[in-house]
């Protein structure tokens, strides 16, 4: 009987581990999808919409094709890298050093992504108002403010890595205790049955 319980406990622990890993992978895929939508799909459709806007209700304005191509290229390139990094960051176990490092990499990539708006020319978009003149939209101040917030996030991620490294044992103990309690609970239920 005890042998049977031991085998079952072993199977349970394997399934639990598998379940936990699957959960992490699903979480990673979910966040990758969110990043693909927010860093690639939404900006792509926004710039495509802005490209051929009608100004003053009567005049068509056009963003130059080369500027549009450049902006879309950099947004998609960095968006893709960020989305990839998001998978590794969010599929790592919570409060792990691995997760902390990938989160830091991801924030730095986010800074590059935002900065790509600046060097691709998306912060000062120029439109030709056909046979009339030009229209300029300047978003530089907004991008700089976002970068400020991201800088604070980088500090937070560095703090996380230091915290995870210093309190590694405590975090591990807590994780193990949580697992042990969950296992005990299951065993108790099974024994009752």
């Amino acid at each position, binding site marked *: 009987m005890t042998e049977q319980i031991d085998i079952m406990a072993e199977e349970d622990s394997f399934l639990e581990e598998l379940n936990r890993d699957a959960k992490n992978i699903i979480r990673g895929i979910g966040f990758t999808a969110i990043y693909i939508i927010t860093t690639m799909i939404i900006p792509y459709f926004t710039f495509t919409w802005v490209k051929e806007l009608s100004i003053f209700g009567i005049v068509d304005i056009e963003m130059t094709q080369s500027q549009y191509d450049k902006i879309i290229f950099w947004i998609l390139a960095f968006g893709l890298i960020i989305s990839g990094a998001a998978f590794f960051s969010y599929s790592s176990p919570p409060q792990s050093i691995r997760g902390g490092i990938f989160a830091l990499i991801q924030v730095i990539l986010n800074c590059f992504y935002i900065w790509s708006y600046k060097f691709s020319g998306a912060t000062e978009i120029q439109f030709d108002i056909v046979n009339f003149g030009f229209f300029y*939209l300047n978003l530089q101040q907004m991008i700089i403010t976002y970068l400020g917030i991201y800088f604070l996030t980088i500090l937070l991620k560095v703090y996380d890595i230091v915290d995870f490294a210093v309190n590694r044992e405590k975090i591990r103990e807590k994780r193990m205790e949580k697992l042990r309690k969950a296992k005990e609970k299951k065993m108790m239920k099974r024994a009752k049955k």
Partner: protein
Amino acid sequence: MRVSRIIRLIVRIVLYVFTISLTIVSLLGGLSAITIITNPDNIGIPDGDITFTFNATNPADNYINVPFNFTNDGYFELSNLFVRVRLNMTYGHYSGGGPTALNVTTTRNIFDGNHTINSIPATQTINSNLEGDSSEFKNIPLPANISSVEPVIFGADIFVSASYSLNLLAFRVEILNFTITLT
């Protein structure tokens, strides 16, 4: 929960508040800028006829008045509305002297004036004028140098700029070579 995690949670919440506020302000600001520029009634520059008198013989008579209106149809206050009018004169004159003199066309800038309005609250409309008297006209060619063969053409370059959403967004419109006739 560990103390370090509590500190982190507080900082994280503050950062989320910053990011969400900035995103909302930016989205509403962008939407407002689009709302303003896509409605032809919002930016009236010039709003009606431009009063323009020009006399090369008697420069004291020179005068320009450009009426304009601006409606802030957005969600936030619009600040630093700057309107600039640059007037160019294209005229014919003889280059060189004697029988070999050539009739050439020259364009020179004879007026450059601007008007600034510090702020326009949301949903408000302002009506104003950009005026320039003889003292602001410059670079006027001597009447003897203006050929009667070529017609004198006056064209204005109009620049309008403003900032929005706590100066996070700025836009500028340039209308080039807008033909002006004497009144």
